[in-house]
């Protein structure tokens, strides 16, 4: 389980996260939603320590860090090993082929045997129907394909949690459907993994989420089951959903 306890993050005067306490259970899909600038990505990126909050604590399973204290390299590495991040703009390494993108971390970070890493990479490519792209460079692929490869790259490290930061917002609707189908599939296959997803796509959220966290101005306004989020009577959430025509 990922747990944030009283976490705050300031950007100069602005509070991106305001005393946030939240849990993301293992084997569940948690979806973070909210208006732009509400702190969704800041919260997600804090799990991987890409953002360092100013206060509060983060616990991931048996690991814990206090943001008000210095976090060592080893602690950072251990925390990052727990999760795999999929970025909005994919962030694949353009100078490496698809296969090299997927195997780079297992070989260099985990010191995995090359043949084993390649075998696992092909298994993952099969999962997203992209085996034939193994020797291509990311620049030769469509946005949807790149996003699927970036999911493979994150899964290659066998993380316990998969973090997805607006995974489909840079894609057109057709490619978005492809990626969403893959994510649904992964959620079913990799049941033991926890997934934390930031998205604006409410249909997708409704489809995959076990729980929804609604953030506004860095504060949690809702944290509960999906159906309660969509069918509840919270006025602010109703306004938010109606603005998105849900």
């Amino acid at each position, binding site marked *: 389980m990922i747990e944030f306890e009283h976490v705050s993050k300031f950007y100069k005067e602005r509070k991106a996260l305001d005393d946030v306490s939240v849990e993301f259970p293992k084997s569940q899909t948690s979806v973070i939603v909210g208006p732009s600038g509400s702190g969704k990505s800041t919260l997600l990126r804090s799990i991987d320590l890409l953002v360092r909050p100013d206060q509060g604590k983060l616990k991931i399973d048996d690991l814990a860090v206090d943001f008000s204290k210095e976090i060592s*390299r080893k602690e950072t590495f251990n925390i*990052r090993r727990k999760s795999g991040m999929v*970025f909005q703009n994919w962030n694949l*390494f353009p*100078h490496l082929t698809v296969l090299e993108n997927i195997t780079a971390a297992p070989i*260099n*970070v985990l010191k995995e045997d090359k043949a084993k890493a390649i075998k696992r990479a092909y298994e993952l490519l099969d999962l997203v129907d992209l085996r034939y792209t193994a020797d291509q460079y*990311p620049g030769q692929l469509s946005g949807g394909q790149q996003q699927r490869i970036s999911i493979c790259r*994150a899964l290659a490290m066998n993380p316990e949690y998969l973090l997805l930061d607006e995974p489909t917002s840079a894609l057109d609707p057709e490619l978005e459907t492809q990626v969403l189908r893959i994510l649904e599939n992964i959620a079913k296959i990799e049941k033991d993994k926890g997934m934390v997803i930031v998205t604006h796509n409410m249909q997708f959220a409704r489809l995959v989420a076990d729980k929804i966290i609604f953030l506004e101005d860095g504060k949690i306004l809702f944290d509960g089951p999906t159906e309660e989020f969509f069918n509840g009577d919270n006025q602010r959430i109703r306004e938010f959903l109606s603005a998105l025509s849900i």
Partner: protein
Amino acid sequence: MWQTITSSLPELIAAGVKFTIPLALISFAFGLILAVITAVIKLTNPSGNLFIKSIWKVIQAIAYFYVWIFRSTPLLVQLFIIFFGLPSVGLEIPAFTAAVITFSLNTGAYASENIRAALLSIPRDQWEAAYTLGFNNRQTLFKIIFPQAIRIALPPLSNEFIGLIKDTSLASSITILEMFTVSQQIAAKNYQPLLMYGIVAVLYAILCSLLSLLQRYLEKRANRYIKRGDN
């Protein structure tokens, strides 16, 4: 005229092979190492305690001073200080070594700015993607960032190298028998300065043109992953 050309060419080419090319190659190799070190020092902000941060600030100040001083003074003056100036404080350096030191330091200062700019042009996202996969700073720099930065730094670095080839002619002023010195010596004997300096100019041009071809090949290789139309 042809007889002068054919009789002087072997001597000039020998000087090129013996001094001009090695001087440029060795100096560029050392310069490049210095450039990478300097660029990384300038761009790195270490975490850690106040003592480490203070030491690093001093190292960074030295790096900034080095780049400033070598970019602000003429190469010929630098060469004279190292070869003719240093013996007065008891540091006598052989001519070839003095030339290598000067050209390396000069190239390092200029190239460090090219490398720094190339490193800065790689999006922050690439660092983040590597970090989330567990890469440490060194692995991120050498496996992810540098290979991409080289593509961007290649044209200005090639320019540096071509400039260096021509600058090696300044070594004639500290008694090194490189191509230009030999052409001066032959011209003094046969009284045909126009022809001799013309020949040596053509030899420099051929050398630089070959390097331009090599640059084009390397750029093509470095750009192999870039889709046409992308930057």
